[in-house]
């Protein structure tokens, strides 16, 4: 079991007071403590953004990658050592902007990775430009006359792309988020957890109050996470934002049966066993 002390680092969080990242941080740590996992068997891969700064506040095996690219790093880690539980902590700019291709491909491949996206509808770290989830008309430094594009709908995309675990949480509801993260990590496959999060400094529209007014819980309305059509219908309703598990199924994860792995994590293969003699003979 992982304890609170195990996760503590000497670095003090650098987020703005009132930032939703605190709630997500708390939930990530609580979820790790609730998982039945050895500390050394968990790796968290972070993106670049305020969200990714969490890498300094959670002790353990971590990898802070490039902006937009934590997902393929996580997939590489998982393919190298499938014993590990691999989690990605990142932002909406990171995932749905810079790294959208990896988001879709990760879902397609159903790599056994849990993706936690801080969805604050802005680029926090670069001082508040509109992110891909910003609403049409949203004004920011990069969109002074209002965002022209419609927002990305990560939940609908994930459901449409055969996501095997698609959920949404809210930074101001850590109890629900802990459950979602635990369920996501336990799920065998690519778990998408989009987390609504307020940016206290730059997003004056989508505040905690705003999110509270615009969200409801799927379980309160008797949603069945096996029902893909219902999941999609709820996902595309952008006036009422649902939280909870939209959809889950048992589609085989990528690393279930990778040829060449022989059921043993790659990292445990004995390299001295490599022998190309027979293969070389085929070139004769």
């Amino acid at each position: 079991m992982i304890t609170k002390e195990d996760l503590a680092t000497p670095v003090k969080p650098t987020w703005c007071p009132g930032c939703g990242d605190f709630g997500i941080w708390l939930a990530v740590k609580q979820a790790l403590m609730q998982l039945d996992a050895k500390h050394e068997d968990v790796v968290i891969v972070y993106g670049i953004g305020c969200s990714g700064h969490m890498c300094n506040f959670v002790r353990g095996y971590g990898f802070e990658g490039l902006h937009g690219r934590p997902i393929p790093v996580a997939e590489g880690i998982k393919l190298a050592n499938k014993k590990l539980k691999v989690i990605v902590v990142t932002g909406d700019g990171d995932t749905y902007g810079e790294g959208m291709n990896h988001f879709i491909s990760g879902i397609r491949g159903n790599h056994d990775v849990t993706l936690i996206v801080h969805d604050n509808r802005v680029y926090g770290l670069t001082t508040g430009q509109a992110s891909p989830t910003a609403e049409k008309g949203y004004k920011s430094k990069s969109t002074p006359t209002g965002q022209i594009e419609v927002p990305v709908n990560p939940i609908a995309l994930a459901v449409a792309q055969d996501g095997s675990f698609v959920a949404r949480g809210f930074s101001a509801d850590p109890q629900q988020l802990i459950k979602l993260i635990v369920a996501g990590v336990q799920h065998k496959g690519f778990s998408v957890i989009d987390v609504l999060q307020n940016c206290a400094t730059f997003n004056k529209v989508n505040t905690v109050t705003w999110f509270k007014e615009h969200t409801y819980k799927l379980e309160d309305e008797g949603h069945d996470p096996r029902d893909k059509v219902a999941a999609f219908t709820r996902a595309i309703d952008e006036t009422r934002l649902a939280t909870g598990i939209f959809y889950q199924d048992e589609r085989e994860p990528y690393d279930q049966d990778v040829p060449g792995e022989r059921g043993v994590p790659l990292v445990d293969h004995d390299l001295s066993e490599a022998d190309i003699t027979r293969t070389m003979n085929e070139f004769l």
Partner: protein
Amino acid sequence: MSLFLAVNKISFRIGGPAGFGIMNTGLMFSKACSRIGLHVFDYVEYPSLIRGGHNTYQVRAEDTPVRSQVETVDVLIALDEPTLTIHADELKEDSLIVYDDATIHPEHTVLKRGIRCPVPLKALVAEVGGPEIMQNTVALAAVLGILDYDFSVFETLVQDSFEGKKGGIVDQNIQVARKGYDYAREHYGHHSHYQLKAVKAPKRMVLTGNEAIALGAVQAGLKFYAAYPMTPASTILHTLAAWQERHNIVVKHAEDEISVVNMGIGAGYAGVRSMVATSGGGFALMNEGVSLAAITESPIVIVEVMRGGPATGLPTWTEQSDLRFVMGAGHGDFPRFILAPGDVEEAFWMAAEALNIAETYQSPVIIVSDKYLAESHRTAEPFDLSKVRIERGKLLRQAPKNYLRYADSPDGVSPRTIPGVPDGFFLANSDEHDDWGYSNEESGIRNRMMQKRMRKEAAYAKTMPQPALVGATDADVTIVGWGSTKGPILDAMDWLAKDGCKVNFLQITHISPFPAETVKKLLAGTKRTLMVENNYTAQMAGVIREKTGIELKEKLLKYDGRPFYPEEIYGRVKTMIGKGGAQ
């Protein structure tokens, strides 16, 4: 007609439209020559399309080492009329031309020279009821018939090549081969001025640079390979993908090259030997990843197989124009390790070497190759596998007390744990960081980390292999080159030596860190130099000048996508020596 007899010295070409099995037929000829003990080099030209266009496959085989193709053609198989026109100038009076006169009419072409040996390819295939593609086998067998090649050796080759295919296919192929062989002997047996005869020789492989890299990497413990298809790197992907189960490796065709390099870094960080490959355009996408591997000190090998640029450029043609790009790849300052193999042996050994450097110095390592090396086959004796070393550097399977991943060390390399090791925790951080890995932008720590990382390059430089001059001592001309130009340079040097010319060769295989002192010393002792490069701007000459202060004034450059022919190098050196009056 036959004025001379050329035994075991042949330049063969097959040409025709893309999609007609020309690549397979060419390779069969290469293997046929290798099986009777000859040295073989082959070279393919094809446009970037699947059907139509003109494909050619050129094979040179001799009983002494050959490492490049030559300009003239002794035997030509033409599978369409354009082949006769396109290659008319390469033919000599006594060159043999095999084609099907039912479909090809030399009088419609500009064909001037050569001995016409029409063979009813289509009709012979029809006699056994085989598919049209078997015309290739008939044509090849016909050529072997004229060249007095031992049919039973070819029969075995066909059997080996179609191993695993249904018995019927093998038998049919052998049947049509026999027909083509007999037909040619009956009608053209008297044109026996070119012959292929078995010689005593060790068994040799016929393989490409890409295959050699794949073999070397696997033998050196490669476990993870990711790629996105891009000519001319794709055959590494195909080769390794086919070997996944047999060699216990995981191969991932990822969504793009950015993903490829990041996956490779993730796998390297997690403790497996990881490699990726691409060509210039894909490498451009990987650039940020090169930097990431450097600052997180994650091992990864990146193979950059160059083709003609810029942009999509010449997708299926060769060029060495990414040297400066590769040397400058990735933003920021960090140690750079770059290897440039010049032939299949070096490709094999450097793949293993690169994996060792990557883990020993916990760094990205780049192997720079090109289409000419990547896709040309050459004969090579099986590699001595007992000499392959796996050096994993300071890899810890147990963490010491108070472990600090990025602790300072004299050689810049800090002991490394991997996820799964109890108490070996650390953060691999793309932000500048402290000894644990936590983000840190303090001036003192920045300087220490920067110096620690850069010391790795200096540490490696002390142990790295140094270049040497090969060829004549006291040479009148020193040829300088790198990468795949090695083959045509060495072949030209063989001819020059026969003419009594004193020439030697400086090949730069380890490009970064640059062996400046050695190169400076070697060049200081030369009389005249000739820089040979497959690019417009003489990029290596520029690097040499930057690193040694020596300017190599005379250059032989080529950037039309074609490799050098030894004739071009031979001719240039001859003129230099003539002018210099050294002969």
